[in-house]
């Protein structure tokens, strides 16, 4: 599954993981964030928000929290989080992870 390979490998290589939150109702779909993102974490939705704009969807698995997107976002709709490079991640993966993952990922297919 193409969807899985980068994800797992990502975990191996990257120390720091990031994630972004998009305030989609404020997003104007200007796409400036998209091309500021080296990791191609961001893409445009097919549907429009209440203001009639297509908005940004983030693939946080590849986000490294570099903050570029948030910096260039004119409308300040992006909030960025980042894991602390030092802190060792505690594995709290539940037993039934496979099923969970499957059930979760399928819809986006």
């Amino acid at each position, binding site marked *: 599954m193409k969807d899985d390979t980068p994800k797992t490998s990502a975990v191996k290589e990257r120390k720091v993981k990031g994630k972004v939150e998009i305030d989609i109702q404020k997003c*104007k779909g200007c796409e400036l964030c998209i091309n500021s993102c080296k990791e191609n974490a961001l893409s445009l939705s097919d549907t*429009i928000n*209440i*203001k*009639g*704009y297509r908005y940004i969807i983030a693939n946080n698995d590849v986000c490294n929290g570099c903050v570029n997107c948030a910096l260039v976002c004119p409308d300040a709709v992006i909030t960025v989080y980042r894991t602390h490079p030092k802190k060792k991640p505690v594995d709290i993966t539940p037993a039934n992870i496979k099923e969970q993952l499957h059930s979760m990922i399928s819809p986006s297919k």
Partner: protein
Amino acid sequence: MLEELIVAGFGGQGVLSLGMTLAYAGMVENKEISWMPSYGPEMRGGTANCMVIVSDKKISSPIISSFDSAIVLNQPSMDKFEARIKPGGLLLYESGNIFKPSTRTDIDIIGITATTEALQMKNAKIMNMIMLGAYLQLKPIVQIDSILEALKKVLPEKYHFLLAINKQALEKGEMMVHQPKVEIL
């Protein structure tokens, strides 16, 4: 004959040009017309509308508070103008952009998926012409030919190659009102 129409939607949905095309067509048929746009920065991203009056007699006031028909292309416009349609009037809307359809029972209400159709025709811009086609099917106040005449004036020379697809769009609109797909939202 006197038709008082409002066309309203997002800026960029071709609201003003829809109204203008209709106005030109009216002129082609030597009718009296007035076209009154909303203007100002709210057009930026926000909503735009225009009032079009087509009449056989001289038009006194270009300002109208209630309408014989409304062509509505987004929700804010629906909220704003739904109530101002005269009883027995027509409400034609682009259903892809509307999630709270009208609840009025004293007017004809028809929604069509012009946006989807336009995308299928590979040109989002012609959505407004699909709406116009549909409108004229329901309110044949001018001939389609007059519209095509008008388009020649509205469109700058260099865009005349688009006349064909606009014609298709108009026809598409005409058809759609015969079997309106009412959407499940």
